[in-house]
């Protein structure tokens, strides 16, 4: 039992099984170069975003504002670029502005949740509304065309995939190699113990939210570039997709558990899932059913696993001679 680690092999198996099923069901459509590219490009935005939101999930937080922050960032990029005339320089300034907006939004999330001890879901639930409003005001409820060459190139062909690889590698490096990455896992796994170990839990958390905001903005830029336009509805549904990708990828929404390769796997599977469902003419609106069930089952499983551990812990406390309660 100990030697067979299901979680190591389950992911490739699921992935292969998925590809095989789709190839058998829809061989002509699924196994074409065009489709492969379309799967990959649709994976790219989710992959970029999950590379950053994983930090928030790892510390046991959540972000319900992904969809509208994504739209807001894209609208900011488009608006700034338009105002500045659309030159390559203007595009750069626009992108920078969008990324700053994303990071600042994340900082605000992190600051409010940690300083006032307000649950992250509530803060991001409220800010999603703020971001939506801001995106609508800024775009005047119009679609802004994003056809500047320097902007459009970001979403062309394999460029989004390259971005995804860069973001994923950077995220992997930080999580796997740096001291900060170690701290992230420690904070998510046991904030009290982390604090006692001299880690500034508040600071680590705020940085995690900022990273998440930053990558969400990047995801928005890529999406706007792919669709050559930005509006306040650009990100619709992406909150769910990113969370589902993370959950599929084995990231525990209870914190402290999960890896970047897992998250990227989740993003790829999400792309395949979306692609497969659309090839089988299942409306994207109906696929929410599947995603929702996946989340419930995965988190219920996590919760059971955690309850199991805390039961063990309860036993240990009981037998301990210095059990603090009632002794």
């Amino acid at each position, binding site marked *: 039992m100990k030697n067979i680690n299901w979680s190591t092999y389950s992911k490739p198996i699921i992935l292969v099984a998925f590809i095989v099923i789709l190839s058998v069901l829809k061989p002509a459509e699924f196994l074409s170069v065009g489709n492969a590219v379309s799967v990959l490009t649709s994976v790219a935005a989710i992959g970029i975003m999950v590379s950053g939101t994983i930090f928030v999930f790892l510390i046991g937080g959540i972000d319900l504002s992904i969809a509208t922050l994504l739209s807001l960032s894209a609208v900011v990029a488009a608006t700034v670029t338009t105002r500045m005339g659309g030159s390559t320089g203007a595009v750069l300034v626009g992108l920078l502005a969008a990324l700053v907006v994303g990071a600042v939004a994340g900082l605000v999330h992190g600051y409010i949740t940690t300083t006032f001890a*307000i649950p992250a*879901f509530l803060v991001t639930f409220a*800010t999603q509304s703020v971001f939506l409003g801001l995106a609508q005001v800024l775009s005047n409820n119009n679609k802004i065309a994003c056809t500047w060459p320097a902007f459009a190139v970001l979403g062309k062909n394999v460029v989004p995939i390259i971005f995804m690889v860069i973001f994923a590698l950077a995220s992997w490096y930080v999580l796997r190699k740096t001291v900060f990455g170690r701290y992230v896992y420690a904070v998510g796994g046991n904030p009290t113990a982390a604090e006692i170990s001299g880690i500034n839990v508040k600071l680590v958390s705020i940085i995690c939210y900022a990273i998440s905001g930053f990558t969400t903005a990047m995801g928005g830029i890529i999406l706007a570039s792919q669709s050559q336009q930005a509006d306040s509805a650009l990100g619709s549904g992406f909150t769910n997709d990113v969370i589902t990708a993370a959950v599929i990828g084995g990231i525990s*929404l209870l914190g402290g558990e999960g890896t970047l390769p897992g998250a990227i796997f989740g993003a790829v599977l999400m792309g395949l899932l979306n692609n497969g469902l659309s090839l089988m003419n299942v409306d994207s609106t109906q696929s929410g*059913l599947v995603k929702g069930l996946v*989340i419930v089952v995965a988190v219920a499983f996590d919760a059971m696993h955690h309850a199991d551990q805390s039961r063990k812990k309860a036993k240990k406390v009981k037998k301990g001679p210095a059990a603090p309660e009632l002794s």
Partner: protein
Amino acid sequence: MKRMNQTTMRRLISIGMLLILVALFAGLAGTGEGKFFNETNLIEIVRNASIPAIIGVGITFVIITAGIDLSTGSMLALVGMVMANIYVYTLWPIPIMIIVGLLVGLVCGLVNGFIVAKLNVPEFIGTLAMMLVYRGLTYIIAVKNDIGAIESVRMNHSQYAFLGEDFMFVGLYYVIIAMIIVVILGQIVLKYTRFGTNLYSVGASKKAATLSGIDVMKTRIIAYAVTGVTVAIGAIFMTAKLQSTTANLGTDFEFDPIAAAVVGGVALSGGSGDVIGTLIGALFMATLDNGVKMLDMNASYQYIVKGAIIIAVVIFDSLYKRRIDRRAKEEGAKEGLE
């Protein structure tokens, strides 16, 4: 000096917020015919607040147990679509259709309760996921036209559509009456029954509630079930008013009842607040919507202001609670010295 009761204090704050907002819009958008501050418009505001207030009663129950329900918008659509199916494809009488609608709400609520209380899935994740599930189901069962496209379903049978109207005299809408009944019932259950007391106990401390012999799991599940039923009531009045339903009915609607509860002083940490507070909150939100429209402001500002208000209120509540806790601790220390 006798300290003012925390609950009373919070109630005064939310009433104050509502009055200030009304006064503000009365000043900015004017009084009299066709303006903000006149009878017709004020009734309109109450009418618009009714559905969020009805659902808000259920949400209040859930939040008092320290839970949350993000799936009410989708649930609303699912209930509407089930009723639409009955309306279009069967000859069942309208009352049966309404009863089935209520049952669908009840079942959805029970499912949410089961996932959250029995499977121990964190409330916001479980209900977020169910938001997707209910929406997906709605699209799957959506009434489609000959070429398979989802369309808006007319539900204008006179036995049904009248629920969206007023009766006896102009402005006395059925939905307002329903809201008043649900709010009063909700408040009575909360304050005058054991179940109500249990809700507060569970929200304040699950451990203490268990020690006092309260069935925590059952209490939580029932709170979600109540929410399901209030959502169904909301769905009935909403579709009756629109005389139609669509698959994307209630999109983003989960925001409004929660916002109403938060503004009305129902603390998300559980154990405090009541239905009257949520009603005040719902009136506040409806006034905001209406006033912004009256001022011909971009409707988008509503989203910004709503979100900002929620954040401001929860930060206020958090700071306020911290002060109370500190005071209790200090007093405990003083008592220890005697």
